[in-house]
């Protein structure tokens, strides 16, 4: 009894210290990045430090058997071997595949052993591949209960035998089976490479110790232990069900109990794959490695993003032009005939939220056109030319479209100060958390929140500061704001817009605004009167726009007056 208590408290203390170390490393990282790390080694070292603390945590957890297979585990291992691979000219890629692993990121399993297995497999793959790529992927699915030979859906025909291990628990048998069937998730790990394969006859035996493929024409070295270690790890690790070597690589399945994932929040790096209504975002990919490009394209397609892949940098400019043409076309077609209406000078409004247009009146039909995310590997060509093409794209992009640029700068040659402030630079390979961060820029996945995009709001307030702030906040949220100084201006603008809206020839009256924010106390026709007259004007058109009345008065006479006026 005492032992387990002591255990628990010791582990708690260790966890606290580890958390402390992790937190301090993150602070250091922020400090360094704020000062501009230039080409220092510190950030890379700090990332490895964080990885080590996660390992320690993993070991601790495995003692208590409450570990998690985080997405970071895969990323850490792949990142560890990526530099080694790059030196040889081999790209080490973590394939997000179908993103299923993010749905089941909280599981019980032995993190340390799993990492060891992956490390060994990856180390082998990199060692025995002289060019091309090594791809690591993991995907999750609910296990099927029948045992038997299951063919993988990959074209390299790896066959895995399925046999279920019972996960020992302290509960009663029936409870255990109940829990198991509900919560079990099957993970399949695959490490494929373009190196010399393992010949069929050797595939079974290669997991024994000391056995190594003898064709060492290229002098590939190895201790012969690697896969043997994998074998014993697989045997002795709870939950790992089987491994199989195939032509192109090795895969193993792990049958792991997953903690129900809706009882907690996903970590920040996980991808929220609940896609909101499709906002029509597009991604343009220009990446040096064709394999990585293809895998990314596949993944994005699965999660519902439209992707354009540009294979060479000469094609960048024409591709961007085409995207822009399509976007601008859809925007202008929605403008309709309103572009012929009189252009009012911007000075009539103290703050014009419609920068760049002469058409000051609200347009009933213009809506949000789309978001374009441009991901470019700086090693594809001369940065000068690439950045020129991108700048050209951004110029004249219709104002209803947003764009964001992500530079993949593995050579770390970019000077961030010379880039536009919203551009993102990623110097580590684009997979794992960096990939999710990039996708997170898209509006469907929690990108810059513009919930009011496409909305038109009339703001009437005689306080210039209040007007400024309301306009600013509204614009930040994506709305088009039409500020007015007093009730009279508001009424005038409202009536004019209502008129114009009807000349476009629609059968139904188009609403000039989605909402009106009206301050009640204003000079030159206060808000209350303006509201009453707006309602009157609306009657003849049969519309009713929500008006939000703002007042500093507390309950009392003034409030009652407001309600009297507005029937």
């Amino acid at each position, binding site marked *: 009894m005492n032992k387990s208590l002591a255990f628990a408290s010791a582990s708690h203390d260790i966890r606290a210290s580890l958390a402390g170390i992790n937190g301090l490393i993150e602070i250091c990282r922020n400090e360094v990045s*704020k000062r*501009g790390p230039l080409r220092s080694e510190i950030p890379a070292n700090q990332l490895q430090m964080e990885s080590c603390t996660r390992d320690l945590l993993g070991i601790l957890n495995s003692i208590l058997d409450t570990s998690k297979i985080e997405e970071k585990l895969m990323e850490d291992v792949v990142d560890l071997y990526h530099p080694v691979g790059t030196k040889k000219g081999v790209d080490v890629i973590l394939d997000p595949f179908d993103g299923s692993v993010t749905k089941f990121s909280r599981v019980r399993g032995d993190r340390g052993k799993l990492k060891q297995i992956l490390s060994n497999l990856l180390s082998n793959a990199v060692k025995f591949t002289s060019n091309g790529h090594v791809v690591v992927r993991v995907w999750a699915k609910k296990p099927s209960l029948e045992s038997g030979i299951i063919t993988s859906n990959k074209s390299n025909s790896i066959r895995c035998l399925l046999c279920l291990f019972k996960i020992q628990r302290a509960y009663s048998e029936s409870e255990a089976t109940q829990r198991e069937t509900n919560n079990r998730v099957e993970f399949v790990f695959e490490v494929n490479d373009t190196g010399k394969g393992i010949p069929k006859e050797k595939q079974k035996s290669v997991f024994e110790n000391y056995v190594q493929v003898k064709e060492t024409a290229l002098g590939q070295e190895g201790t012969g232990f690697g896969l043997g270690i994998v074998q014993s790890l697989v045997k002795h690790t709870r939950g790992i069900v089987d491994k199989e070597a195939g032509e192109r690589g090795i895969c193993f399945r792990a049958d792991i109990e997953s903690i129900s994932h809706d009882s907690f929040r996903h970590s920040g790096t996980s991808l929220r794959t609940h896609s909101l209504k499709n906002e029509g975002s597009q991604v343009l990919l220009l990446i040096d490695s064709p394999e990585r490009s293809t895998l990314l394209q596949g993944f994005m397609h699965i999660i519902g993003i439209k992707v354009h892949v540009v294979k060479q940098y000469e094609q960048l400019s024409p591709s961007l032009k085409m995207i822009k043409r399509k976007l601008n076309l859809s925007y202008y077609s929605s403008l309709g005939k309103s572009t012929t209406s009189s252009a009012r000078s911007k000075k009539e409004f103290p703050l014009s939220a419609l920068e760049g247009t002469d058409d000051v009146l609200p347009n009933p039909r213009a809506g949000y056109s789309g978001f374009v995310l441009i991901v470019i590997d700086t090693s594809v060509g001369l940065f000068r030319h690439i950045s020129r093409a991108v700048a050209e794209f951004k110029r004249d992009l219709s104002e209803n479209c947003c764009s964001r640029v992500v530079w993949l700068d593995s050579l770390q040659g970019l000077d961030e100060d010379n880039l536009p*402030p*919203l551009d993102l630079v990623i110097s580590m390979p684009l997979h794992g958390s960096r990939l999710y961060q990039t996708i997170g820029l898209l509006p469907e996945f929690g990108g810059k929140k513009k919930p009011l995009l496409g909305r038109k709001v009339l703001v009437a307030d*005689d*306080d*210039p*500061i*209040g007007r*400024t*702030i309301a306009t*600013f*906040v509204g614009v*930040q949220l994506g709305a088009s704001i039409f500020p007015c100084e007093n009730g009279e201006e508001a009424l005038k603008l409202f009536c004019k817009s209502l008129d114009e809206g009807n000349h476009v020839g629609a059968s139904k009256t188009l609403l000039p605004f989605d909402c009106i924010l009206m301050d009640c*106390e204003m*000079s030159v026709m206060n808000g209350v009167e303006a509201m009453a007259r707006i309602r009157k004007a609306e009657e003849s058109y049969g519309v009713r726009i929500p008006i939000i009345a703002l007042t*500093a008065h507390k309950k009392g006479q003034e409030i009652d007056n407001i309600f009297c006026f507005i029937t």
Partner: protein
Amino acid sequence: MEVDQLQRSFLEYTTSLFREGFLDGQFGQLQMLQDESNPDFVVEVVSLFFEDSQRILNDLSITLNQQNVDYKKIDANVPQLKGSSSSIGAQRVRNACIAFRNFCEEQNADACRRCLQQVKQEYLLVKEKLEALIRLEQQIVAAGGAIPMLNEFS
């Protein structure tokens, strides 16, 4: 001067302004609205406040210096100043305006003049403080640092 030092001074100064009641949570909200894509938001709003307030205070002075004080005008102007000082978080100016309004209803010319003095004083004080704060901000940016954010306040 080192960026760290500047940032620390900035935080200390801002905290003291909140503590002494010159600024309230509203100003904090404005600071939070500012970001890389709108780095001058606070400066713009503050400048607007200065312009607007100066105009109103001038008008009020003129009105109160007349033989026959036009209380209607005062009644129109004071709430405006109260509104804009609220919007920017200039707490003491706002409170002074509230007192002013009460005396205006009583049509007490002397009291009103005293109130006007009070409002003017508070305005000048907060103006000075805000200008100092903005100067600090500009120094930080010039030294290559980022303007630190205070955690949630009042």
